[in-house]
């Protein structure tokens, strides 16, 4: 897993609530047996019309917006447990998703793939959306070590929460398998005590 400490970059405002994992990666693209290449079909049915032409109204297709930070509406990642959603987003080039609320399974999947979910207050989310829409080149700084997110040209620095263990994993690029394997003896001992 890639390490993550801080990131200063432009962001894309996806001002839609309840973005579910079927939108992030539709089920018909889940037939691959590896993790790569899902970015091509990220938000497929929003990026393209049914006839295959580009949907110019969709924010990812608007040339003024670019960057590895996706700023999305409330309850991002609800629905299916498919980790393909996290793979699609990282493969597309995103490193951070900002929202006022994340669905549980998506959040875990993102963290397991070096994609940082940053949960902010609805007020700050609104401020962020407004700032990016008003001036798309606005830079956003996400500092995982300090657990803060800030908007260029604003003194307002917003703190965010993250599980301490997951933070360490992200900063060092560790994953849970390494940790669990180191606990093999404890697990085997526990198995003998099971009812």
């Amino acid at each position, binding site marked *: 897993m890639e390490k993550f400490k801080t990131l200063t970059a432009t962001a894309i405002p996806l*001002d*839609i*609530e*309840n973005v*579910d994992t*079927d*939108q992030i990666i*539709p*089920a*018909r693209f*889940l*037939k*691959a*047996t*590896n*993790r790569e290449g899902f970015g091509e079909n990220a938000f497929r*049915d929003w990026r393209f019309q*049914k006839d295959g032409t580009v949907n110019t109204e969709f924010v990812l297709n608007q040339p003024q917006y670019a960057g590895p930070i996706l700023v999305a*509406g*409330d*309850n991002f990642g*609800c*629905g*299916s*447990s*498919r*980790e*393909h959603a*996290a793979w699609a987003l990282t493969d597309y080039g995103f490193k951070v998703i900002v929202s006022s*609320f*994340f*669905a*549980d*399974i998506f959040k*875990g*999947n993102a963290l*397991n*793939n070096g994609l940082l979910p940053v949960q902010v207050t609805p007020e700050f989310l609104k401020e962020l959306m407004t700032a990016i829409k008003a001036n798309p080149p606005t830079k956003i700084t996400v500092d995982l070590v300090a657990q803060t997110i800030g908007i260029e040209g604003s003194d307002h620095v917003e703190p965010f929460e993250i*599980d*301490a*263990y997951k933070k360490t994993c992200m900063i060092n690029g560790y*994953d*849970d*398998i390494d*940790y*669990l*394997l180191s*606990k*093999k003896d*404890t*697990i085997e001992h*526990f*198995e003998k005590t*099971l*009812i």
Partner: protein
Amino acid sequence: MGKTLFDKVWDAHVVDTIKDGPQILYIDKHLIHEVTSPQAFKELEERNIPVFRPDQIVATADHNTPTLNQHLPIKDELSRKQLEQLSENCKKNNITLYELGHKYNGIVHVMAPELGITQPGMTIVCGDSHTSTHGAFGTIAFGIGTSQVAQVFASQCLLLTKPKSLRVTVNGKLKNGVLPKDVILYIISKIGTNSGTGYFCEYAGDVFENMSMEGRMTVCNMSIEMGARGGMIAPDETTFEYVKGREFAPKGDEFDKKVAYWKTLSTDADATFDKEYFFDAADIEPMLTYGTNPGMGIKISESIPETNDASFEKALDYMNFKKGETLIGKPINYVFIGSCTNSRIEDFRIAADYIKGKQKAANVTAWLVPGSKQVEAQIIEEGLKTIFDEAGFELRQPGCSACLAMNDDKIPQGEYCVSTSNRNFEGRQGQGARTILASPLMAAATAVEGKIIDITKQLQHQVNHEYTAV
């Protein structure tokens, strides 16, 4: 302070606790399928890690499988490869697989309970968010991502932070025509799609106590649609009776010993929850969804709300519905009875009971997809297939089918489908398809009438005909 059902099962499975961090939770049963497992197998192989407890893993093929001509080679190359990969991975790692055509093949959340693999007090995971289904037995069961599938392969454990507790209590008597699906759609319409996020839910009250296991599975199945990782119902005589005698259930003295333990799992009277909701069964009616998430549901007697909000309007625009209108009378061309929510024998009994002596409307394409080979066999054995055939319905072969339309069972662009599945997301049942979630009774009635009807009015005229949440 007393413990909840969830606390009791969770605490019995904690291997260790990381200081200021998550806990190591032991997993009793790991269910896998073709879509979310291949990358996990690959990861283990690349890191040269063996599968730790293959005996505790059971695999099935369901998401991608065709529901017609299952004896023939699968036409779609990618689907075929994914299924072949599953077979190869299971063989290589000594994992039991009920592949396409096997007498136990079926949707993972239908297959495991009916084989007695699912038992009270267990921890069960699967790379599928509807794993919450198994909570009907008083198990901690939840969906996981593929990285976690790999973790369980490697260690039979997961690193997790204990979720908060939520209880939804529904007391009273359900009206005629109100089924378990209506109960859960009603709950989600009231509390929304994210009020359960971060929580594990317990369903309590006499409505759930009086439900069959099939009904309880329908309810727990949709826990994830309110954001909760899982939902549980305390095991009782109904549960024990269901588990008893099933293929992989404990037998004889072992079974009695287990039952004695399972009886201790109910939430203590003095236990407290982080959040509680209470509902009255009498308030619930047959439900329908009108939008693009399962929380956008109304009672059959209600009209679409007049909410002014961009996401709400985007959803109505997708569905081509207007604020303030009723769904009654809307012509419907597609009906799907199936999915891990409603594809068990009881669902088909209800549908057959309604359909018997009637005819499917000419405009409707109606797909009936059993949840497993065993359900399919039972449909035939009980004579339900004859009823469906005579009424012009098509009984297909088991699988996830049009719930997520990974196979050929897709609803065409712009068409409405009254569906017994669990998600009405944009494009879920096919690109541009418009899903209306409902109970098997509402779905059967829609197929017969060719449009949405007020089933409660129809039932008023029928004497001695009860459709209840059994």
